[in-house]
């Protein structure tokens, strides 16, 4: 019955339709024989219905359908292995036919209107407002990924929550320039004694029942080591204040005055901030051992408190100072030296770090005091020139963090024995005069930057119009039609007429400008060809709107020449690691953005820092290939890597003499298992789940992102739960068991061999020979889809270098997808193919590839 219906259909189409093209009879028969069992109009498995005898190539739907057929035929995925197979000849005829028709009937695509991705939106605001610190607020609705990228037209939708976020962003930006809350002035009459002053582990110490605060060090680093400040004072109104400080010296060494330095410390700043970051208020010279009151009048700002520092203390937390003051003491009291040695450097042992010996701050000081009292304290090495003392001093000089902790301990000796600078109380009254807050001062400055100076006698409206005329082209990156300008001018006029203040009117207009679709969307302007090309190029390489140089090339239309385009690409290509293209493209292409969310299992001994290092490796590696214009094969089998020396030794087993805490370029022999994309920790981590590996995941990652041969989604009857794999002898056994089914094996014979070859990398990319849970040797041998037998990972790499055109095509298509906001169509893929072939043939580099892609019809013809 089915056949007769089909026959009728065939007859009717032949008679009725002229436009659609009849499929050559031999191929039509083959399709009918081999495909329509599942893909007919009744069952249409996977929504594929091939019950047609002619194809309307003008219809996108038809082209998409036959493109799918072409792909699965090429990769041998269909028909399933348990079904009748077409002959090789039939296959290649179908491929040739579809390829020809698809190229001939697919046009170069167009740009579709799309909103900015969050990344682009943020960059645009940073650029337009010259506000590099601007960040989208926490909770800004996240972009969805499509084709792995965050900038694809299909997924860049505008939802209500996103619109709320746009409104909110517009409000905050307008507030940032034009809104200032006028708080009522608050009078202050503050007194705080030492007990209200901050003590950390070594900064200061309150003594004499809360009557005295002692300072010991003038350390130039974090304030929590050497300064103290009033913990409950917070200025509410910026202004001039009268301050009184009571201070005295304790056991001064000589007659020189001690200098008490007062700084304005922001209450919300970190205790780790360096002292000099805070504004200096005044200094007092203290030279009496009994309390003396010092007065001054100072400017204090909203949110500040007063911080004390002993500016000329002999002790400053450097090992040199510690050794100098300690030597004085040790010479006078060798027993004290013996106590230090006992605690920090017990005889017959290796010297311990201060954290191990618990020799930190007050605790360390008490431990030494305890040792000092011990009757059986060994004093035999307690001479300043003994080997043990010298060793100890050497350790102090090179002990890194240890030395700071030892200094923290010594500070407590000073608190007890002097010399010390003492503070007894602080009085603050005022303000005697109110001044603009720091926030207000900064706002006034940026407001002026945005609006420009007001001319003499310029009216509010004229000033507003002048701003609008200057700002609009910048905000919308294009020439503004007179109607558009008039529209915003009227908006300002209406606000001003209503009696709204100038600043509130500008607040209103600014909000309107940045909520407009012109601001939020790309390619909306119906703008010129030149402008759209420049904009596309700019967002591609910098994630932001075109800069002045690009706009100049738009204005004089030179952007349309290949020479200019090439020069612009070279200028815009990223040069630094934190450039947006380097930060976003490789991560999205290779899925390593997932590392943000993966927390490797504790058993893998891969710390958060290691995850960060792994993530950075890829960025540096990518940038190097780009900057040096290296050939594409360097992505796969390079003779270098970028990582931290310790990371390379620990996880890559790389024998290197390199040292240091930062990522650096290191040589790595070609063929090294960790060299290139296929052996990087970040990628192996991103393609596992933080605990264990799954061969299929890595196989899918490989065919989708390295050789660009994605397989279709699994058919509907594939169970969503893994089938019973009890009795499996290994992970590989498990996979094989559940892909033994001929329905699965079509795709899995493509996917799994690559996955198996990666099995020697654990879930964070460390090499292993055995599966840990099973304790059996990993078997990475496979037959690839093209028939190549591989013995494992090394062979896979060799195979890929040999077939680098597949990788090149994949990478080029990914770049184009990222640039266009959609995947290139069949016609465009063909153009990309010729570009890649030329690149490989002429041994050109990665930069050359990008330049050629930008010069392509595909990139340019988006009109």
């Amino acid at each position, binding site marked *: 019955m089915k056949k007769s219906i089909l026959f009728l259909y065939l007859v009717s189409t032949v008679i009725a339709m002229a436009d659609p093209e009849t499929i050559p009879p031999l191929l039509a028969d083959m399709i009918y024989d081999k495909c329509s069992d599942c893909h007919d109009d009744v069952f249409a498995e996977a929504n594929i219905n091939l019950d047609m005898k002619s194809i309307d190539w003008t219809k996108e739907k038809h082209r998409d359908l036959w493109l799918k057929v072409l792909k699965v035929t090429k990769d041998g995925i269909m028909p399933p292995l348990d079904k009748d197979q077409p002959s090789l000849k039939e296959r290649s005829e179908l491929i040739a036919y579809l390829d020809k028709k698809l190229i001939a009937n697919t046009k170069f695509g167009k740009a579709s209107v799309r909103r900015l991705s969050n990344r682009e939106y943020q960059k645009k605001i940073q650029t337009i407002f010259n506000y590099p610190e601007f960040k989208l607020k926490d909770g800004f609705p996240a972009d969805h990924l499509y084709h792995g990228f965050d900038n694809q037209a299909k997924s860049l939708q505008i939802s209500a929550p996103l619109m709320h976020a746009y409104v909110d962003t517009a409000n905050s930006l307008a507030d940032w320039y034009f809104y200032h809350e006028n708080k009522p002035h608050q009078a202050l009459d503050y007194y705080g004694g030492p007990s209200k002053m901050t003590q950390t582990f070594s900064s200061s110490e309150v003594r004499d029942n809360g009557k005295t605060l002692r300072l010991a060090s003038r350390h130039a680093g974090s304030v929590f080591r050497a300064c103290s400040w009033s913990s409950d004072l917070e200025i509410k109104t910026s202004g001039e204040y009268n301050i009184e400080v009571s201070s005295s010296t304790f056991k001064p060494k000589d007659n020189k005055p001690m200098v008490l330095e007062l700084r304005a410390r922001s209450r919300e700043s*970190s205790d780790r901030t360096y002292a000099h970051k805070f504004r200096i208020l005044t200094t007092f010279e203290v030279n009496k051992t009994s309390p003396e009151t010092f007065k001054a009048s100072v400017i204090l700002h909203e949110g500040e408190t007063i911080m004390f520092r002993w500016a000329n203390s002999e002790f400053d937390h450097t090992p040199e100072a510690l050794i100098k003051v300690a030597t004085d003491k040790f010479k006078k009291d060798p027993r004290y030296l013996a106590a230090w040695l006992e605690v920090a450097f017990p005889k017959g042992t290796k010297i311990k770090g201060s954290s191990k010996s618990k020799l930190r701050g007050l605790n360390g000081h008490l431990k030494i005091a305890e040792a000092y009292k011990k009757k059986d304290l060994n004093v035999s090495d307690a001479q300043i020139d003994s080997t043990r003392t010298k060793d100890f001093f050497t350790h102090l000089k090179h002990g890194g963090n240890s030395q700071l902790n030892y200094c923290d301990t010594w500070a407590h000796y000073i608190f007890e024995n002097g010399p010390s600078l003492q503070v007894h109380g602080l009085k603050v009254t005022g303000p005697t005069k109110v001044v603009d807050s720091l926030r207000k001062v900064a706002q006034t400055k940026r407001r002026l930057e945005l609006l420009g100076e007001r001319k003499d006698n310029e009216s509010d409206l004229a000033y507003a119009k002048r701003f609008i005329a200057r700002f609009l082209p910048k905000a919308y990156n294009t020439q503004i039609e007179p109607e558009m300008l008039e529209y915003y001018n009227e908006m300002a006029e209406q606000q001003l007429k209503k009696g709204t203040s100038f600043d509130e009117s500008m607040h209103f207009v600014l909000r309107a400008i940045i909520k407009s679709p012109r601001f939020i969307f790309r390619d909306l302007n119906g703008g010129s060809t030149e402008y759209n090309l420049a904009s596309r190029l700019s967002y591609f390489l910098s994630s932001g709107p075109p800069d002045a140089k690009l706009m100049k090339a738009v204005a004089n239309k030179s952007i349309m020449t290949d020479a200019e385009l090439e020069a612009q690409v070279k200028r815009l290509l990223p040069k630094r690691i934190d450039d947006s293209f380097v930060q976003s493209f490789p991560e999205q292409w290779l899925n390593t953005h997932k590392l943000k969310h993966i927390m490797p299992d504790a058993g893998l001994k891969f710390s958060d820092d290691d995850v960060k290092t792994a993530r950075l490796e890829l960025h540096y590696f990518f940038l190097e290939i780009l900057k040096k214009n290296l050939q594409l094969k360097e992505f796969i089998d390079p003779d270098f890597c970028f990582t931290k020396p310790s990371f390379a030794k620990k996880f890559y087993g790389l024998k290197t003499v390199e040292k240091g805490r930062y990522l650096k370029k290191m040589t790595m022999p070609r063929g090294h298992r960790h060299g290139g994309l296929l052996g990087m920790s970040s990628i192996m981590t991103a393609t596992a789940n933080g605990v264990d590996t799954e061969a299929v995941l890595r196989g899918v990652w490989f065919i989708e992102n390295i050789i660009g041969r994605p397989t279709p989604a699994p058919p509907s009857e594939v169970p969503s739960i893994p089938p019973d794999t009890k009795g499996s002898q290994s992970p590989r056994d498990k996979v094989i068991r559940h892909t033994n089914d001929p329905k699965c094996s079509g795709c899995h014979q493509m996917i799994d061999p690559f996955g198996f070859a990666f099995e020697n990398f654990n879930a964070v990319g460390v090499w292993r020979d055995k599966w840990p849970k099973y304790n059996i040797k990993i078997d990475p041998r496979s037959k690839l889809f093209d028939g190549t037998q591989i013995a494992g990972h090394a062979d896979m790499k060799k195979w890929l270098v040999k077939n680098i055109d597949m990788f090149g095509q994949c990478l080029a298509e990914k770049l184009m997808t990222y640039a266009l906001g959609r995947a290139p169509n069949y016609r465009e893929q063909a153009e990309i193919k010729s570009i890649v072939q030329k690149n490989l043939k002429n041994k050109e580099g990665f930069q050359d590839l990008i330049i050629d892609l930008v010069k392509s019809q595909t990139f340019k013809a988006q009109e």
Partner: protein
Amino acid sequence: MNKNIYISPFKGIDRRQFLKGLGAAIALPNLETFADKKNEKVAGARNFVAMGTYLGWHRESFYPKTEGAIKELPTTTKPLEKFASKMSIFSGLDHRAPNGHNAWANYMCGRKPGAYSLDQMIAAEIGQESRFSSLQLIAGSGEPSAIKAISFSKNGTSLPMIARPTVLYRKLFPTASDRKRAEYLLSTGTSVLDDVLVMTQTIQKDLSSKDKEKLSEYYDAIRTVEKDMAKHLKNVNVEIKAPSGATAPDSDPISPSLQIEASNMLYDLLVLALQSDSTRVATLLLDGLGQVFSLDGRKLGSGYHGLSHHGNDPNMIRDLVSIEKAHMACLARFLEKLESTQGSVTGKNLLDETIVVAGTGMGNASVHDNKDLPTLVVGGGLKHGKYHKFDRKGNVLLGNLYVSLQNQLGMNSTQFSNSTGNLNEVVL
């Protein structure tokens, strides 16, 4: 080929994604689609409050000596003794999360720090009708912390926390000028959107049909936002009266060394927030930094953070525990206030209606170990009065308790992070 018409039970979930995620599915939080709808239950509690210390709790001073009915409590939990019958203590529970400070957020998030947190899941279900679906507070941090967080949104964003009591009070009970400003922004906000709409129409003339379609998304979003704003506009300038007797704080003890003072102020405001039904869900992070505390007139031997690395030094432990005890005294004061405040239903007080959790994301700060997280639950109409001791290597996870807490709040949850069931028999 099997040609049965097959309807997938996972309709609406991308199958391929699902297959890819199978390995990780076990660790996924609460796949609502799979929630068992039969378990519906009338809520036994209506509010949820969780506090957590950044530096953990010294276990030996937290857990009672004997399992079962709570009679005597050790030093840290001593201040809570009067609530013994309204409280449950749990030991041996955790999320099997990684160790270290960076993983602290496992407290509310489960196995994966930074995942959708318990309080936010609860807020999504029961907090939507309140003025604030949830509040996040922090005491003792000094500077605004970008790294630390207790609560995380569904997409893994850490939620900012309020450290200043004055800011919290103003948020709860906005001043006349605040309300006027909010009203102005809303009213002019919608009129700006009107203008944008007009302008969009003029642009639209030149657009292709496909592009018009894209812009219609923009229209739709704007219309929804307009409606939301109009709705919000109606009550934005309505005065929210603070419960009688409440006064606005006049200073902000944000210094780390003033943590105890700050906690008390924030707790007081939290009572007002729950009492005025401004929110039903709140978290409080008690940070731990290097500043030295003075408690009961005695200066402690080291800063809070330094003490947490006690290395079993008895003096340091004594000082550490004195801080932890002070935290519990603040909590007890909060619980007393809740207990003496009328609930939403006659005959019930606010404590009966509020689940209060005190815990942490760090089991032992001295060695940065996130196993066996000391946890206690008070109020919320749960079955209380016992100390429940679990084997830290056993099958029961902290997530199991969280599932039960969700159920008590009327949610049909069956899974939290990597939970292996629930503790309904123990606490419901």
